[in-house]
């Protein structure tokens, strides 16, 4: 189904001459412009300059971040593919691999929330099935502006609709996520989407591997004029003119993607594909350059054959289009007809658009003329890399934890305020729009009082088809910790991910990350980036929890106001027997409740401080990584030998909120007691869990043997939460917790 556009003689596209000024509008600075000229050896054509500018955009080249990313730990015996391919790949035994990655679609989601979020989900699923995996779960991490901001409601509505519209149609369950609100995101919401897929370890497909004289094949949706320079837009700050960038946002078609998914997986069963790359950011440009660079070859394209949606497109437009749902393949010579017949079955366009060459150049022909002839290696290897100057963050001032008391109304009033605040309020309004059950393998889905899988856990648990195994999947970041203390915040994001996986009984295996920051050219912001990475690296190393894929999103600032540093961690763990997977809900009355880990009562940067004392003050809680690992291993052991029946990590809102959530998840109350202070009940010390057990003696013995600090705080039962004999019914707490978001969205 090659494009049958009539042979027209070379049209005149009135393309301007490439000057420093033009390069500047493409986002290339003066030095980068000069370097481009040196590489090309003459004044580049308009098409060539377009290609250089997107390849060297922050989004595609990681020019500000590469230097620091190299320092992250990426290896473990079970890692098959670390960063560098479309997604990370880990061995989960029995010849199977989990393939996953998280990616942001922040700027498009601000400009056009529905399509921005939808195409973000589409793009990340493509990254995963490009490698030969069937996607089995999606999760997401969303950050919105403060509720009182006039744009927030509109953005939530569009983003959630877009994620639902795309994911639901694809038949991939959306099983979890996190949503926070803060004024720092008023002009820059964050939409980070993660997909996890399963493949056989001997059937993993990569961009690398292409040789000479092999057909270059285009499959998928037709190319239109949408998303041109999207990667460039995503590499600049926003200002009041950003609305005018709407045409750079792509439009998604989940139905075509579903066909593309099934067609690719069917073709992958044949021995036909040598290498494959999805057309994501910078579309045909980055996919062809990627395949050429990784194969040490050249690519010659004839764009006349590219399936086109619009007439008279210029080579510049075709090369820079970010139209969705497209793939570039290198086929084994002679397999073209076989591949074509599979694409026809699924009604997917198929076109041979060029061939691989020996000369390591990217050549582009169309309308009977050559529009681009540039060397590939320097385009990739000499891409600018900046070690941007940075300033270390100011040391946060510690606060006096003992000087904070309960508000009027006591501990229960504080608990009520927290359970209804936007960050802790139920996100049912969001996740009930996501199909979390399709495929029939979702053991634990999103939320606390879950109405889909009817069970809640600290991580989503998705069974692997035809096995007893399941993956545990979670996304985590506490931006307020990262802002106050980037090193500890970076550590904490990884540690909380680790904790959430351990709390289900699964073994944490590896993470993907999505590093959302402001403008790296501002030394304070670059400092946040460097320090968050430092913390992350330390935690990943100590916890043996390597980073196998990721995405960097910089320039998240509007009119000079940056977002809070938000390095989101997407964690994946494995549980061998789904029957042992443990949730947060209490399972019966009269069980004994313990706190695992040491409680000091750290209130700095806590939710209590922000929501009740109305202060965003203090230092972030310290993460003792050795303690983290020790406590995590202990929890997994207890779950494995069935010594505990429910487990929840202690995070936002401390012990009081954690126990309340366990009650809301099960409709079984709890009577707990302890030090009568705000810092005890609402402090956010790290590396802690709440557990309940039917066999307290056995449990205490194991804790003692393993040198684990535990504290008995009470027992389960009844229909109230009782804290030091101050009571409130679960029903009231549930109503408070469920009320805020639907009321806000309806208002």
């Amino acid at each position, binding site marked *: 189904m090659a494009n049958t556009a009539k042979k027209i003689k070379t049209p005149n596209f009135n393309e301007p001459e490439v000057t420093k000024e033009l390069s500047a509008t493409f986002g290339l600075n003066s030095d980068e412009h000069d370097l481009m000229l040196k590489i090309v050896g003459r004044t580049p054509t308009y098409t060539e300059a377009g290609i250089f500018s997107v390849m060297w955009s922050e989004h595609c080249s990681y020019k500000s971040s590469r230097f620091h990313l190299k320092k992250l730990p990426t290896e473990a015996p079970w890692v098959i593919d670390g960063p560098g391919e479309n997604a990370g790949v880990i061995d989960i035994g029995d010849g199977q691999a989990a393939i996953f990655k998280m990616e942001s679609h922040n700027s498009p989601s601000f400009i056009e929330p529905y399509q921005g979020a939808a195409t973000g989900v589409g793009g990340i699923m493509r990254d995963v099935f490009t490698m030969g995996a069937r996607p089995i779960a999606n999760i997401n991490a969303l950050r919105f502006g403060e509720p009182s901001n006039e744009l927030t409601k509109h953005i939530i509505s569009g983003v959630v609709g877009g994620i639902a519209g795309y994911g639901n149609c694809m038949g991939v369950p959306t099983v979890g996520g996190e949503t926070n609100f803060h004024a720092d995101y008023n002009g820059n919401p964050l939409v980070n989407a993660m997909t996890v897929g399963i493949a056989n370890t001997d059937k993993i497909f990569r961009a690398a591997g292409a040789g000479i004289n092999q057909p270059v094949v285009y499959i998928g949706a037709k190319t239109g004029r949408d998303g041109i320079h999207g990667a460039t837009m995503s590499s600049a700050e926003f200002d009041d003119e950003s609305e005018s960038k709407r045409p750079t946002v792509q439009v998604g078609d989940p139905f075509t993607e579903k066909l593309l998914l099934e067609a690719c997986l069917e073709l992958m069963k044949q021995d036909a594909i040598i290498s494959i790359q999805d057309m994501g950011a910078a579309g045909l440009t980055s996919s062809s350059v990627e395949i050429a660079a990784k194969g040490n070859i050249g690519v010659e394209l004839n764009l006349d054959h590219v399936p086109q949606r619009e007439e008279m497109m210029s080579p510049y437009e075709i090369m820079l289009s970010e139209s969705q749902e497209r793939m570039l393949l290198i086929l084994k010579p002679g397999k073209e007809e076989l591949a074509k017949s599979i694409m026809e079955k699924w009604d997917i366009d198929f076109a041979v658009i060029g061939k691989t060459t020996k000369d390591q150049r990217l050549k582009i022909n169309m309308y009977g003329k050559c529009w681009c002839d540039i060397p590939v290696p320097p385009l990739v290897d000499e891409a600018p890399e900046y070690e941007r100057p940075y300033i270390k963050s100011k040391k946060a001032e510690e606060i006096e934890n003992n000087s904070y008391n309960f508000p009027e109304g006591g501990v229960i009033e504080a608990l009520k305020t927290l359970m209804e605040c936007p960050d802790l309020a139920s996100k049912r309004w969001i996740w009930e*729009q996501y199909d979390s059950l399709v495929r*029939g393998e979702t053991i634990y889905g999103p939320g606390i009082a879950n109405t889909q899988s009817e069970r809640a856990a600290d991580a989503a648990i998705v069974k692997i088809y035809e096995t007893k195994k399941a993956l545990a999947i979670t996304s985590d970041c506490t931006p307020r910790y990262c802002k106050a203390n980037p090193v500890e915040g970076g550590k904490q994001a990884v540690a909380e991910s680790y904790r959430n996986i351990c709390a289900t009984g699964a073994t944490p295996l590896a993470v993907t990350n999505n590093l959302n920051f402001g403008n790296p050219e501002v030394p304070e912001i670059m400092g946040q980036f460097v320090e968050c990475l430092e913390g992350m690296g330390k935690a990943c190393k100590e916890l043996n929890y390597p980073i196998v894929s990721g995405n960097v999103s910089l320039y998240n600032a509007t009119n000079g106001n940056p977002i809070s540093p938000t390095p989101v961690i997407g964690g994946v763990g494995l549980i061998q027997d789904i029957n042992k997977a443990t949730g947060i809900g209490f399972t019966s009355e009269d069980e004994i409740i313990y706190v695992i880990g040491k409680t000091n009562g750290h209130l700095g940067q806590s939710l209590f401080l922000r929501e009740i004392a109305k202060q965003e003050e203090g230092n972030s809680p310290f993460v003792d990584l050795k303690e983290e690992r020790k406590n995590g291993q202990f929890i997994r052991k207890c779950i494995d030998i069935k010594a505990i029946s429910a487990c929840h990590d202690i995070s936002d809102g401390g012990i009081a909120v954690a126990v309340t959530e366990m009650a809301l998840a099960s409709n079984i109350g709890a009577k707990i007691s302890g030090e009568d202070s705000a810092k005890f009940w609402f402090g956010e010390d790290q590396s802690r869990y709440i557990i309940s057990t039917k066999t307290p003696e056995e449990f205490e013995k194991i804790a003692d043997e393993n040198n684990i600090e535990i504290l008995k705080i009470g027992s389960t039962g009844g229909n109230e939460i009782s804290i030091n004999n101050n009571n409130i019914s679960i029903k009231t707490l549930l109503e408070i917790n469920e009320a805020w978001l639907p009321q806000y969205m309806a208002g």
Partner: protein
Amino acid sequence: MKTSIIVFPGTKCEKDMAMDVEKISGRKANMIWHKETDIGNPDIIILPGGFSYGDYLRCGAMAAHSPIMQEVIKKAKNGTKILGVCNGFQMLVETKLLPGALLHNRTLKFICKQVNLRTETNNSPFTQNMNKGDIIKVPIAHGEGNYFADEKTIKTLEDNDRIAFKYCNEKGEIDEESNPNGSINNIAGIFSEDKKILGMMPHPENSILDYQANQNGKSLFEGILKEIA
């Protein structure tokens, strides 16, 4: 039980259905691609959920005019049993094998959650293993499941025992609060006149296996099995 599951390009619940058919009947289902024209001689045809042809028009509207559906209609006229779930139900009303229409949910949003259904009759091959009044909790996952028909049609359905399930509360009461999508009379599923066709919006196939939230869908599938085994 010989089962044929029809797979359209945008179908997404065929895997879930196939797992259940195998679990309950012990036989693998035949997966029939929409471009094929021979359905074989199954005891039951299942139209699973999904987005058939993308459903950018009305859900199921394009599928209703596909060649394979003409075969399904022929089989239906010869008495082959048909179960249409979610998008499958939408196809059955678009082909007029069942009366009425499925409109956008009244919230205008996609909804995925467990709902309670009251079994309205056990006088059908599908519900024969259940009792009238049985309450089963199964999930819904749809954007267009708001059942609508004119008054006369509703009366015919009610008078002729052709309503399979209604959305209800935990006690089995049919109330407004338990109606997730705005369906007339809380209707969740209906039969053809000869009761050989069942269309329903909820997904009993996701309430069968041990590790799923509950196993309430089993009685429905076992009923079908008993009939044709």
